[in-house]
C-alpha cells in the first residue's frame, strides 16, 4: 500500500510515538537549556507525548509513580542553566520546557497534558506555550542575567540607563512567580496572530465540510507523522463516518492504514498553501522546509485535489 519514496518524510516505518517523543524533545530543545532531560525515563516520555484532545476531553491515566516534589527543594540546583532572558526566548515553550524540568527522580508532575489539551484543543488564537512552561520557570526561581551593582554605588546623578541593560538581581521587585508567569504570557501576546515568532508557528487548518477551522503550532512537531496524527485527532469528529468503515484501530499509536486512509486515501488529501500562494501536497519536501514555507493547511476533499497531486488522486481511485 505504501510507496516509501513518496512517503519519506511521513515515515511509515518509524518507531512508535513514544520514542518519537524523545526525539522530539531532544531535537527541539533550545540550546540555552541545560540537558537535564537526558535523565528522562520512558515514563517521563509518555508524559511528554503530545496528546491533542478536543476541548473538554480528559487526559489519560497518569502513571502512579509520578508524585510531586516541590520547587524549593528539587529545582534550586537547576537554576544555574537558566536565565530569565533565555526563558523568554524559548523555542515553543511548553513541551520543551517540560522535558527540561524533569529530573531523574520522576517526582515531577506537570501540566503538559492537561494544559496542552486545554491549549491546543481549543485552537486558540494565541500561541500559548502552556502552563508547563510556567511550571518550569516558576519553581526554578531563575536568577536573571546578573549584573551586580557595585557595592558602593556611586551617587552619580547622571547615571542613566544604557540602551542594552543587563538585569539586576531582584529588580524590579516582582515575585518570581509573577515574573515567570508574565514572561510566558508576554510570548502569547506577541505570537497571537500566528506570526512566525520565535516560539511557535500557528497556522490555520481548514477541512472541507467542517464548520470551523483549527490552528496548529507547526513548531511542536518534528515530522509529518506527528502532524498527521494531530490533525487526525483534531478532525476526527468530522470523519467518523469514514473512519468507521475502515475499522478504527487503537488510538494510541498511529497505524499506517488509518493514517493513509484519512489523509491520502478515500476522501481527503492534506494540502498546504506555501509562501508563493500555491497549494501543495503535504509530504513532498523535508519537514523543515515545509514548516518554513507553510502558511496554512487545508484538508481537501479528494475530489477537489485534481491537478494538485496526481499520484494522490490515483491512490484515491485505487482505494475506491
Amino acid at each position, binding site marked *: 500500500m505504501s510507496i516509501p519514496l513518496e512517503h519519506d518524510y511521513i515515515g511509515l516505518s518509524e518507531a512508535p510515538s513514544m520514542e518519537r517523543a524523545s526525539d522530539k524533545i531532544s531535537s527541539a530543545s533550545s540550546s540555552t537549556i541545560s540537558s537535564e532531560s537526558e535523565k528522562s525515563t520512558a515514563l517521563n516520555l509518555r508524559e511528554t507525548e503530545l496528546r491533542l484532545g478536543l476541548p473538554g476531553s480528559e*487526559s489519560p491515566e497518569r502513571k502512579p509513580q509520578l508524585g510531586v516534589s*516541590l520547587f524549593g527543594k528539587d529545582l534550586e540546583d537547576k537554576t544555574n542553566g537558566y536565565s530569565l532572558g533565555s526563558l523568554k526566548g524559548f523555542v515553543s515553550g511548553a513541551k520543551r520546557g517540560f522535558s527540561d524540568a524533569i529530573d531523574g527522580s520522576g517526582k515531577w508532575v506537570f501540566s503538559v497534558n492537561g494544559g496542552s489539551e486545554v491549549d491546543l484543543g481549543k485552537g486558540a488564537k494565541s500561541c500559548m506555550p502552556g*502552563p508547563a512552561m510556567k511550571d518550569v520557570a516558576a519553581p526554578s526561581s531563575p536568577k536573571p542575567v546578573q549584573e551586580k551593582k557595585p*557595592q558602593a*554605588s556611586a551617587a552619580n*546623578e547622571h547615571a542613566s540607563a544604557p540602551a542594552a541593560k543587563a538585569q*539586576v538581581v531582584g529588580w*524590579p*521587585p516582582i515575585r518570581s512567580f509573577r515574573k515567570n508567569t508574565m514572561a510566558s504570557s508576554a510570548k*502569547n501576546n506577541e505570537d497571537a496572530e500566528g506570526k512566525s515568532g520565535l516560539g511557535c508557528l500557528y497556522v490555520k487548518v481548514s477541512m472541507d465540510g467542517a464548520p470551523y477551522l483549527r490552528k496548529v503550532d507547526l513548531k511542536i512537531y518534528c515530522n509529518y507523522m506527528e502532524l498527521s496524527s494531530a490533525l487526525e485527532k483534531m478532525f476526527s469528529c468530522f470523519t467518523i463516518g469514514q473512519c468507521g468503515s475502515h475499522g478504527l484501530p487503537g488510538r494510541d499509536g498511529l497505524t499506517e492504514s488509518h493514517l493513509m486512509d484519512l489523509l491520502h486515501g478515500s476522501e481527503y488529501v492534506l494540502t498546504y498553501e506555501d509562501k508563493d500562494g500555491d497549494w501543495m501536497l503535504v509530504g513532498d519536501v523535508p519537514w523543515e522546509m515545509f514548516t518554513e514555507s507553510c502558511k496554512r493547511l487545508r484538508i481537501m476533499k479528494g475530489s477537489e485535489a485534481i491537478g494538485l497531486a496526481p499520484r494522490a488522486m490515483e491512490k484515491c481511485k485505487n482505494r475506491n
Partner: protein
Amino acid sequence: MAYSFPEEVLEHVFSFIHTDKDRNAISLVCKSWYEVERWSRRRIFIGNCYAVSPGIVIRRFPELRSVALKGKPHFADFNLVPDGWGGNVYPWIAAMAMAYPMLEELRLKRMVVTDESLELISRSFKNFKVLVLSSCEGFSTDGLAAIAANCSGRFSEESRISSFDLLSFATFFLSNQTKRYNRFELKPACEVDIGSPISLIPDFAHHWCPSTFPAWPPRCPSLRTLRLNRAVPLDRLPNLLRRAPQLVELGTGAYSAEHRPEVFSSLAGAFSNCKELKSLSGFWDVVPDYLPAVYPACSGITSLNLSYATIQSPDLIKLVTQCQNLQRLWVLDYIEDSGLDALAASCKDLQELRVFPSEPYDMEGNVALTEQGLVSVSEGCPKLHSVLYFCRQMTNAALVSIAKNRPNMTRFRLCIIEPRTRDYQTLEPLDVGFGAIVEHCKELHRLSLSGLLTDRVFEYIGTHAKKLEMLSVAFAGDGDLGLHHVLSGCKSLRKLEIRDCPFGDKALLANAAKLETMRSLWMSSCSVSFGACKLLGQKMPRLNVEVMDERGRPDSRPESCSVEKLYIYRSVAGPRSDMPRFVWTMKTPS
C-alpha cells in the same frame, strides 16, 4: 499585697482583649497581671522566628492555641536571600508538639517547611484546624497528604488548607494518593484553595471529573472559598459553581475556551446564581469573549484580581466599570491611564489598587500607563489608601497631587521600573514628591521609594513620617546622612530594607540603639564595612548582626571591605545556630 480582683475575674476581663499590642500592655502593669495574662493568652504572632526561641515562648505562654511565624526577610521574595539561609520551622514544631498538644492553628510565612515538619504536625496536634503556608518552601505533596490523612477526620467546619503562595506549591489533590485519602474530599472544609497556579494540575484536572469524583465539590454548604488551578478548564466551571452557589471567593482556572454559546450561557447562568460572590481571581489565559459571563456577579464584587489577565484596556474597562462596589483591584498595566480614569469614575469605594508591570524587563514600555493614571485614581477615589504602582515615569507634581488628594494614604509603594529615574518634566530628583507624600499622609505606615533620590528625601521622611513602620529603599541617597535621617527620625520604624545605596558605617553605628527598637534591618550592596559589623555585633548583645557573603569568609578580606549583605535583627535568643556557610554572626565577646 491584696489583690483587687480574684484571678478568675481578671482572666475573664482579659478574654475580651485580643490585639497583641493591648495584651502586651496589660502584661506590663504588674506581676500578677503578667501572670494572669500569660496563662490566658491563646494567640501569638512572632514576626521574626529568630527573635525568640521556642523554649522562651513556651515558658512564657503555656496555653497557646494559635501560632504565627515569619521567617525570611522580605527581600527573599525578590531572590536576594540565597537558598539555605534558614527559617526552618521544624525546631518549632518539635517543641510545640510537646508543649501544645491542643494547638489548633499554625500560620507560617517565608519559612522552610519540610515534609517531616508536616508529618509531625499531623501526628502531634489532636485538635488541629488551620494550616496556612504563605510563601513557604521545602515540602511536597507527601507532606500535605500526611496532614490531610491524619487530620482529616478532625477538621472542623473552620478548617482549611490554605493556598501556597510563591515559591512552593502543592495541590491538595494528588493523583493516585487521592485514592488512598478519599475520605478527605474536603467535606468539612469551608475554604479550599486548590491553589497553586503552578503545579500538579493535570492530575487534578484529570481526576476531577464526574467519573472519579462524582460529588466533587461535594455539596458543602460551608464552602466559602474556592480557588482553582490554572489547568482546570473553563467548561468545568459552571458545574462547579452550581454545586457551590454560596461561594464568597472564587479563583477561576483557565479562563479561555473556544467560543461556544452554550458554554457561555451556562457560565453566565452559573455566575448569576452566585449571590454571595465577593472576590474573583484567577483569570488565567483569559479570552475576552468570555468575560461578560462574569457581569451578572459584578455588582457584589469587592475584590478583583486580574493581575494575571493579559487582556487589553478596553476589555478591562468594561469589566471593571461593572463592579461599582469594588474595594480592591489588582491589575496589569494593560489597564493604562484610560482604564484608570474609568476606574476613578466608577468605583468610588476603591481602597486598594495594585498595578503590576506586564513587561518588567522591557526598557521601552509597552503600554500607555503613566503617572497620570495614578493621579486620576487618587482624585476620584476618596477611600483609596493602599497603592502599589509600577510605572516608567513620574513627576514631582504628580506625587504632590496624589499626596494632597489622599492624605488618608496608609501604604504607598511606587516602583519606577528604571532605577534612578528623574522627574521627566523637570529632570529633578523625586525628593520633593515623596516629601509631599510623607508630609501630607500622616497615617502612612508603609512606603517604598524609587526613582532618583538624594539625601533630601530621607530628611523629609525623618522629619514627617512619624507613623512609618516599614520603609523600602533602592538605588537612592548620597551618603550616610540619608540613613541617619531615617534612623533618627522615624519613631515608629520597625522594618527597614535597603539595597544598592551608598550608606556606610557612620549612620549605622551612630544609631545602633535604634536598631534594638526595630524588628530588622536589611542592607545589601551598600557600603557597610566588615569592621563596622564586627563592632556593632560586639557592642549590641541583643542584636544579631548577620553578615551574608557568598564570596567567602569576610575576615579573609580587609576590614574596610564592604559586606555583600547585612541582616540585623533584635533577639532575645542570642545568635542562631543553623546558619549556612555564607552567613556569619558577629558575636559579642562573652
